[in-house]
């Protein structure tokens, strides 16, 4: 049986197709202003027996194509447990939200927490900070790794943080140092959410921000080898959905 999973997030859409448990297709596109059309393009040459959708825009797919849906919490839980059996926690930092998910011994979701209304401390926040500092989004983490410690960014709000960064630049601070400080503040927030939920280890770090070298470096300082970085962190949800499509 061929199973497809789509994770339609606020920033990007992922498609994973599996056959007999093996990934045969994985693709990504930007959500843009018409995500349903993006999904149609992603699926143009794909045939599948069963489909499951997840992510913030799942309802639009249910309406457009009558595909079944599942929350991203369950999709990430299933994806993490299938990719790395024995995982007990998930940190997912995506485009516009941060999730911390506890899994029980059987890989089932037992508890979760999500950030509040705004995009503080998420991928979108890092993206805006990269722009303010004049870095490319994908090199921000690498540049931050070159930074020196010592600066503290206090604001998690993208708007306030931007003015904080601007005044640090005006003071003559190095932008790599500021970039490091930004990552440290995002990391502190994530670690806070993890501690609040008493997450058991090992923890899988998923979502687009798990591609960021500086975030990995900083989180490893706290969790060491208990933090697992999957091969394609942003596909965990879509993979989970594909697995669930077969159940």
């Amino acid at each position, binding site marked *: 049986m061929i199973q497809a999973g789509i994770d339609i997030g606020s920033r990007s859409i992922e498609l994973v197709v599996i056959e007999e448990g093996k990934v045969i297709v994985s693709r990504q596109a930007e959500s843009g202003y018409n995500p349903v059309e993006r999904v149609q393009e992603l699926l143009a040459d794909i045939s599948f027996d069963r489909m499951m959708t997840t992510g913030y825009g799942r309802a639009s797919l249910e309406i457009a194509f009558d595909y079944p849906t599942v929350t991203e*919490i*369950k999709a990430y839980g299933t994806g993490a447990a299938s990719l790395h059996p024995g995982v007990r926690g998930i940190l997912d930092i995506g485009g516009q939200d941060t999730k911390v998910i506890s899994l029980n011994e059987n890989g*089932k979701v037992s508890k*979760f927490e*999500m950030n*509040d209304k705004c995009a503080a401390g998420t991928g979108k926040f890092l993206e805006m900070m990269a722009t303010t500092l004049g870095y490319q989004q994908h090199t921000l983490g690498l540049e931050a790794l070159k930074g020196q410690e010592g600066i503290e960014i206090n604001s998690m709000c993208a708007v306030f943080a931007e003015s904080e960064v601007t005044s640090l630049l005006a003071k003559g601070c190095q932008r790599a140092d500021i970039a490091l400080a930004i990552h440290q503040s995002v990391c502190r927030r994530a670690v806070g959410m993890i501690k609040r939920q008493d997450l058991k280890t090992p923890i899988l770090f998923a979502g687009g921000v798990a591609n960021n070298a500086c975030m990995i470096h900083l989180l490893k300082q706290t969790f060491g080898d208990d933090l697992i970085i999957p091969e394609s962190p942003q596909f965990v949800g879509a993979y989970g959905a594909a697995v669930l499509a077969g159940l």
Partner: protein
Amino acid sequence: MADYTKMWTDLGLNLDNHDALLANLGGAYQSIFMTQENRPAGMGYFDFVMSEAHGLRIQELREEQEAGRKIIGSFCVFVPEEIVLAAGCTSVGLCSGADFAQEEVEKVLPRNTCSLIKSFFGFSLGKVCPYMEVSDLIVGENTCDGKKKAFETFKEMVPNFYQMDMPQNKAPMGRKLLTHEYKAFLAKLEEMTGKKISKKDLQEGIAIVNAKRAALSRLAILRAADPCPISGLDALLINQIAFLDNPARFTEKLNALCDELDVLVKEKKGAIAEKAPRVIISGCPMAIPNWKVPAVIEAAGAVIVGEESCIGERGQRNATDDSAETLDGLIDAVVDRYFKIDCAVFTPNQERVEHIKEMTKNYNADGVIHYGLQFCQPYIMESFSVEKTLEKDGISVLRLETDYSQEDMGQLSTRVEAFVEIIK
């Protein structure tokens, strides 16, 4: 609905604002309530009351006023309806379940104030609540800090405000304070009506309110059945209407509905499918027309089987003992009954979590959703210990914090759906 324009004008409502509010409310009611399937026939009465909440019911209250009754508006279940009725007055709950005239409100209140407080300010400033306008006396109670400080401003906005102090703990001194306040309230009503309240008056008031609470608890118990014979939304609506309707008529209609539900339970017929995940809502009250979170929960395929809330079981459990020989004895019995309310403004407030556990067990719930209004310090503070205690007992908890706006619907749905997936 008949044309009530003249009545609304006489009451001093702002007709444009009021039309906008009613249009909004009507739309929400249609899409949330009237689209439900398998509703018991007895809900027809409550739909009717809602459709006439600003019309016929207000007309009735005005007729009562013409016949000499005073209308007492209040915001809290600590204002004793028994005493209001004993004084020959009518008790109504005041509107505080929707955002209105926000810009006006933020001229007089900090932004970071809970939605409920902002709401009754908005209804008052926007002149859209006929209950507020028809009230001869508006009773505010010093429960949380937000309310008691807001009342300092509010009492300058309305001509007929009466403030009631409230204890903060359940020690003997606290009880003494509540007794003192209830006696002062009784004296105030006597002064307003020129009528001396007798033992018999209070006994009659107690009988009416006890009968209403008995009917509400009958409804509560019927929801223990699987399949649940009534949706949580409809049950919440009934609990909300309990604050607006004529109490004797409400009791009669609710008992008739419960007779119908008795049969449905026997026949294993449900308003919600059998084996639907069952949820208790616990936390801040949901005043009309605050249906946001319950609508999200039931749209996610779960059924709400109890409200641990002032508009729900916390506000309605326990009858008042009417056996005392004297008026003072009866007042003591009223105090006894209200002093048991486990509102989060009290410290300590251990009984509340025990009640949540009890409700979870009695109504066969699979999990608890804790509902906190943003900036409601008492309930949000307590939600942490409630969550911990319940989880220690193996009860799944989801803590939600929200307000009356619709902007977080997407996130709320995701959280609630994920919680339902967990408890399924």
